């Protein structure tokens, strides 16, 4: 079983590739829509700007291929911008009223990280560095979400670097607080499809554990 690691020419997929390989996966790095359509599992990494990524996925024919694969219910992991692309759209270099389109696996539009907390105190954006990831209430019920975080203590540190964040919704399975709480991991309800805001491939042992768990899910484990 090979995981297709989608290379849409936005750099920095080697660490993800190495991380998945270290987790025991065979990895096929590809920008081919055919590979994605045939994939048994897909990882969508990503750094950079939403609009640019969205345009590139369209141009390469990957947007439709990813939607088809996800419609089939293949195990999927979106990382950082890849997580953002799971939503309906994003505002980066676009606007709230006409966002750049995403895959639409989850509802809502990706917006800016808030620089202010409820008391009006100022926080730095981008949100850069190691922050705690806490399982969301209710997500305990999802065996798949539990499996993704198996062996990882609640509040474990992961590495983040982003200026935009996913919208809140039913898909939220973990949250992190900067100026405000935001979804740091999401799942498509009923499917083995996840997005994480942090970079597991850059997050030391905890990140390696999460990638191993995803590879188990990709291999057909579904938790209890």
């Amino acid at each position: 079983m090979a995981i297709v690691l989608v290379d849409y020419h936005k750099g920095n997929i080697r660490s993800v590739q190495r991380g998945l390989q270290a987790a025991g996966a065979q990895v096929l790095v590809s920008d081919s829509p055919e590979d994605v359509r045939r994939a048994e599992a897909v990882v969508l990494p990503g750094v950079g700007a939403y609009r640019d990524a969205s345009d590139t996925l369209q141009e390469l024919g990957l947007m439709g291929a990813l939607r088809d694969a996800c419609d089939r219910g293949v195990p999927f992991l979106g990382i950082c911008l890849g997580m953002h692309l799971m939503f309906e759209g994003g505002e980066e270099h676009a606007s709230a009223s006409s966002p750049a389109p995403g895959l639409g696996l989850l509802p809502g539009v990706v917006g800016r990280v808030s620089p202010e907390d409820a008391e009006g105190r100022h926080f730095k954006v981008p949100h850069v560095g190691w922050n705690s990831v806490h399982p969301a209430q209710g997500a305990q019920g999802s065996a798949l979400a539990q499996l993704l975080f198996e062996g990882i203590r609640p509040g474990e540190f992961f590495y983040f670097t982003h200026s935009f964040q996913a919208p809140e919704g039913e898909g939220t399975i973990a949250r992190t607080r900067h100026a405000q709480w935001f979804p740091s991991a999401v799942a498509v309800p009923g499917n083995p499809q996840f997005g994480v805001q942090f970079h597991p491939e850059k997050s030391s042992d905890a990140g390696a554990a999460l990638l191993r768990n995803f590879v188990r899910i990709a291999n057909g484990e579904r938790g209890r």
Partner: protein
Amino acid sequence: MLTKRVIPCLDVKDGRVVKGVNFVGLRDAGDPIELACRYDAQKADEVVFLDITATSDRRDTTVELASRASEELHLPYCVGGGFRSVADIRRMIAAGADKVSVNSAAVANPALITEAARAFGTQAILCAIDAKQVPGNPNKWEVYVAGGRKATGLDAVEWAVEAARRGAGEILLTSMDRDGSRDGFDCALTRAVARAVDVPVIASGGVGKLEHFAQGILEGEADAVLAASVFHFGEFTVRQVKESMASYGIPVRL
């Protein structure tokens, strides 16, 4: 809660660490990756490789370094030094660098920051600023380029604001007055920049004692602290630094 970062910095020339390295048990003290792996194991939050290779034709070694780093490190890393164009930056990011820092080229051509941030995202672009206090004016600092050899006439705080506005996701701020002094960070400079910009500021230059790290955060209001020789000479481990910071109530990843 977001933790404050501790970042060892390695000066690299032609693919080798320069500045003395005095570490027990290193196979090859000049290998930047072996040293960086050591810091990775000590729970460094990030590593910066500063390429001081003078000639551009030797820069292939730095691309190779970035590529090896992405194979062997489990933490984010930044490569700085010598980027003149978006194409230069693209090569480094394609090799696996999470971030690049720009300095002289951005002063000469501020649009480089705008273009690079647009291409790779603001989180990938650091603006490194080397600043020196203006004589007789304790609250004014001037930007220097070309490794600190050339004054620019630019005000450091204003340049930091401009760089952030153009899309630099972080400011790596080095006090030239303090660099190598072991007197601690220039907290007045760091605070002035940290308060003026919305993006994170990494304090650099001057660490000599453990408590200097906490000072950079508490008095300098920095988001991260960077040091080189105190780590390379084995004076402090990253863990000791973090434990010291934690004793001041600073959130760190231990």
